[in-house]
Every structure is written in C-alpha cells, then in structure tokens.
C-alpha cells in the first residue's frame, strides 16, 4: 500500500481543441436526485496501446472503468460484440452514427503508453454521442504501472463527474474486518482494499479480536478497537507504516466506538466504567479526556457532523436505543429518532444532510437514512442482520455488514444507493464485516 500512498499523479489537460457540446437535445446529463430507473448506455472500447508494453494495460484499464460505471447502477455497458465501429486511433474523428446506432449515449475512448522507470500514462475522452460532441476536455494521468487500477478509477471518477455533475467515489479504499473460523471461535483481522474489493492487504494478524476500524479524514490513519491487552481499547494505526499506538490506557475501563473529527485532530469515543458507557472526546495526540455525556444509560456510536459542530450518537436513556444530536463539546442532546424499534450506529453523511443508521424492529435489521433533524426517515435494506453503515466519499452510496442467519451464518459486505436501489455484495476474499469507506484519494 505504501507504493500507492507515495504516488503522485500528474494530471494534464490534453491539448486538443474541444468540440462544442451543447446541441438541440442539451448535453448528456444524469440527474441522480431525480431517481434514475433506466441506466444510461455507454461504450468503453479497449483503450489504444501506444507502445508494445501498454497492450495489457489498455485492455484492463478500460474494463475497470466500465465496471466502475456499471456498478453504480446509473450506467449500462454495451458489450463490445455489439460495436459497429472500432476505435483504432485516439485522435481519429468519432463515427457518431455507428455509436448512435447501437444506442451508446456516452462513448469513452482512451490511450495508454508505458514509459521509462515504470511510468504509465493514461489519457481519455468522453463523448456525448447524441449531441455529437466531446464532454469536457480530454485528460491525462501519469503514474506508476503498479497503480494502473487507481488510474482507471480516476478516469471513471472523471466520467461519472462529467455526466452526473457530482464528484465520484471510485478512487477510494475500504478498511474492514476480515473474518475466518466458525461462529463460536471467529478470528478477526484488519484488512484494507480498493472500494471494489481489489488489492486486499492485511493490516494486523488474527492474534487479537479487532472491531470497527474508521478512517481519518485524509485516509492516512485508522482508529479501531482491539482486545490485544485482553480488554477492548482504542488504537490508532498509520496506514502506510502499519505502526500503531494505544490512544487511552486507563485500567478498569473499556474504550470503543471511536471516530475522528472532520479536522482529524480529535477522536470521539465511548468509555465504559463501572458498567456505564458514556461519550468522551480527546486529542489524537494525547492529553486529557473531555466527558461529553453523563448519564446512567448507554451512550455510544458518536459521529461528527462534517462541519465539526455537532455529534450524533445513540442512547438508551428513553428505554430503547434512539438517536440524539448534541453540540460537539457536549451539552443538551436533542432526540431525532421517533419511529418504532431500536436505532444505533448513526453516521453523518459527508454532505451533512443525512444520517445513516442501523434500525432493529420486529425481528429484522435495516440500514436507513433520515435527515439530520430526524425527518424523512427511509429504510434502504431489510434482512436478518444488517448493521454498521459507512458513506461513500460523495454521499451517494452506503456500504454495510450483512450477516446471514444460523449456525453457518457469516458476515459479508454490501452496498446500496441512498435511493434504496442497487443493492450489491462487495467482493471480499472471505467473510468480512465493519467496512469504513475512505475519502477520495488525492
């Protein structure tokens, strides 16, 4: 992973004259908020290999771009065997009629070249077939050949952004708990992967139970809970070096459920003492704890608003776990969940408008969202056990844990759009739980 982290991507506008895009039908556009039922058909022919070393990259990069777009549910890839035209030169004029004939509304073309010192250059263009024009400027990324998937994700992010008007989420990672062994002797370790399940790497061994990792706002550090002393404690890990430190070490207490503040300097968490669990905050570099709640009930699952001024958390002070919002420095909390059932694991969306949560009601578990004032609650999923939502960097997709029922039950990662559509299992090497989505990588 350190290779990737130390990569810098050179990004350049291609120096081609841009064709006008606005035509009678208006530019190609998906308005996500209006609810897309019919995915937009696109074609992504294999990119052009500009030298002999680039052939494999040219093919696989186009495949990753197409898979990213199709996975959103907003786009549908037209298979290559339907193509009338082939693209044989990145600079040749586009035969729009051939792409229009197979109903490809968007066309993505690209070219790949390998250079000295393991460099890889990827350039691409997006065309609005029906308006017969290029959508935005051509772009070029340069990185190392090891990072070819990241470059593909960056191309896909740019395409997504041009067509939806929103930022993408493909060049991102997910940290999660990898699980092995039977249900009554489960072994767990931290793992990290690309958002689509590629490039899995393990960050800890299985010698201690680990739970619920969370990314820092820049994706360089992870907070998590480990039983390595025999008791649950919060640790902070540097992703690049895998070095870690205990954040709080007061014997006789447990600490868990940590999250970073939006500036990355503060951690908010639960601390249990004498059977009572409350919420505290402290500086990640040490220093004294500040107690934010003081109640005989369970207060846990704190999550900052993106502006850092408020914290949403769960509390069973009313008798069942419900969601509350309080100032980030503590103080009076306002209850925001009022439906039937039990609400836990609230997570503020990166846009600030919504809170995702786990809801347990009538023997089923749901992932849901509500506005941060508690209005407009919507349940997105239902199963024997869904829990622990995490937001995509653009706030459009939620990933979570779904555990199957029974003696052979095991957890897996799933994602769903905030519309409730596009439920998908996320590929992992084995059983997996507690995903946390990174910010978009730089």
């Amino acid at each position: 992973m350190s290779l990737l982290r130390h990569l810098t991507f050179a990004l350049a506008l291609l120096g081609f004259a841009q064709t006008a895009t606005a035509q009678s039908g208006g530019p190609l556009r998906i308005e996500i908020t209006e609810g897309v039922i019919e995915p937009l058909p696109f074609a992504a022919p294999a990119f052009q290999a500009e030298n002999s070393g680039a052939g494999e990259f040219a093919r696989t990069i186009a495949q990753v771009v197409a898979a990213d777009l199709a996975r959103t549910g907003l786009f549908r890839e037209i298979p290559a065997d339907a193509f009338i035209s082939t693209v044989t030169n990145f600079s040749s004029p586009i035969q729009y009629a051939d792409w229009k004939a197979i109903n490809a509304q968007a066309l993505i073309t690209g070219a790949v070249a390998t250079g000295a010192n393991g460099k890889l250059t990827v350039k691409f263009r997006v065309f609005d077939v029906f308006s017969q024009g290029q959508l935005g400027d051509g772009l070029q990324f340069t990185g190392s050949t090891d990072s070819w998937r990241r470059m593909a994700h960056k191309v896909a992010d740019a395409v997504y952004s041009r067509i939806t008007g929103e930022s993408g989420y493909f060049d991102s990672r997910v940290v999660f708990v990898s699980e092995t062994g039977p249900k009554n002797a489960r072994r767990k370790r931290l793992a990290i992967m690309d958002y689509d399940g590629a490039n899995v790497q393990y960050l800890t061994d299985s010698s201690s139970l680990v739970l619920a990792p969370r990314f820092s706002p820049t994706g360089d550090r992870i907070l998590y809970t480990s039983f390595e002393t025999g008791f649950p404690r919060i640790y902070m890990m540097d992703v690049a070096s895998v070095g870690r430190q205990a954040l709080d070490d007061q014997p006789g207490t447990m600490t868990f459920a940590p999250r970073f503040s939006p500036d990355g300097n503060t951690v908010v968490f639960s601390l249990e003492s004498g059977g009572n669990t409350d919420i505290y905050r402290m500086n990640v570099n040490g220093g004294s704890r500040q107690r934010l709640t003081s109640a005989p009930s369970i207060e846990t699952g704190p999550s900052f608003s993106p502006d850092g001024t408020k914290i949403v958390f769960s509390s069973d002070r009313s008798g069942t776990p419900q969601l509350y919002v309080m100032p980030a420095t503590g103080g009076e909390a306002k209850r925001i969940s009022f439906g039937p059932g039990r609400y836990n694991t609230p997570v503020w969306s990166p846009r600030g408008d919504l809170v995702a949560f786990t809801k347990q009601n009538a023997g089923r578990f749901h992932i849901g969202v509500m506005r941060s004032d508690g209005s407009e609650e919507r349940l997105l999923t239902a199963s024997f056990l869904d829990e622990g939502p995490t937001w995509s960097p653009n706030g459009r997709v939620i990933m979570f844990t779904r555990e199957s029922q029974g003696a052979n039950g095991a957890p897996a990662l799933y994602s769903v759009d905030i519309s409730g559509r596009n439920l998908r299992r996320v590929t992992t090497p084995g059983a997996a739980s507690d995903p946390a989505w990174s910010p978009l990588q730089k």
Partner: protein
Amino acid sequence: MKHITKAALLVAALSASACTNPGRFGAGADGAMAGSVADPASPAYFQQAVGDRIFFAVDQSTLSPEARDILAKQATWLADNPEYTAIIEGHADEQGTREYNLALGARRASAVQTFLIDRGVAPHRLRTVSFGKERPLEICSEESCYSGNRRAVTVISAGGMTS
C-alpha cells in the same frame, strides 16, 4: 502512548496464558480449568460445582433469583480461596449492533462485580470485560441459543491481576 511493533505484538500474543487472558475467553467454549472437580479448592470445582456463569433476559442486566444463588456461591468460594482473582466476562446475543452489545455486556459484567463486592469479595480481586456479541457459545439463530449466549462468566485465575 506507546508505539508497538509487529514483533512486540506477536510476543505478547504468544505469552498470553490460557486462563488469565480473557482474549481466550477463559473457561468459555471448550476448556476445562485446572484441577479436579473433587477438589473444592480447584478452579475445576469453581467452574463446574459452584457454577461459573449466569444468564440474562433480552437486553437486561438484572440478576435473576437463580443468578443470585450462583453468585452467592461464587462469593463464598472466592472468600474461601483468597489466592484467586477473577475476570468477569459479559456477553450478549447476536440480536444487536456490535457497539451497543459491547456496552450491554459491560453492564452485565458490572452487575456481577457489584454483587460479588457486596458479598464481601475485595474489589481489587475482580475485573470486568465485555465481549459483546463477539464470543457466542451457541451458534444457532434462535432463542434457544440466544438465551445461552446472554451470559456473564466468572473466570478465575491464581495470583494477581494482569494489566
């Protein structure tokens, strides 16, 4: 704040012994503790004759009359065997979120700790830990299994407390 290297972690894991580290969930799933049940001063006697665990109702940490009977016997045994300390493990069934169940398991362990202290066990001999829903004994997804997993287990060991 200590930085821990991977090597140090490995050493720590290897040096953890069976009955003192709750990370191995003590006398939970498989292991009989040391000694013979015939010996009233043995950990095996505590586990099997006294009874090392009690059970809870859904989402509750209150002690049932049956639980109080067992805990009273635990307190007597601990009074008779002062060389032993105990870690009380609190557990929850799988019907709940991970973090809430950690807090719930802590409530259960603490209820046991409070009872034992009230019955004269010195506080310094007792520690609590919660495993939430992470260490079920029973693996079906039915109440018959859930009721066996909502438990607090008193895991004894000779000598002082580990960290």
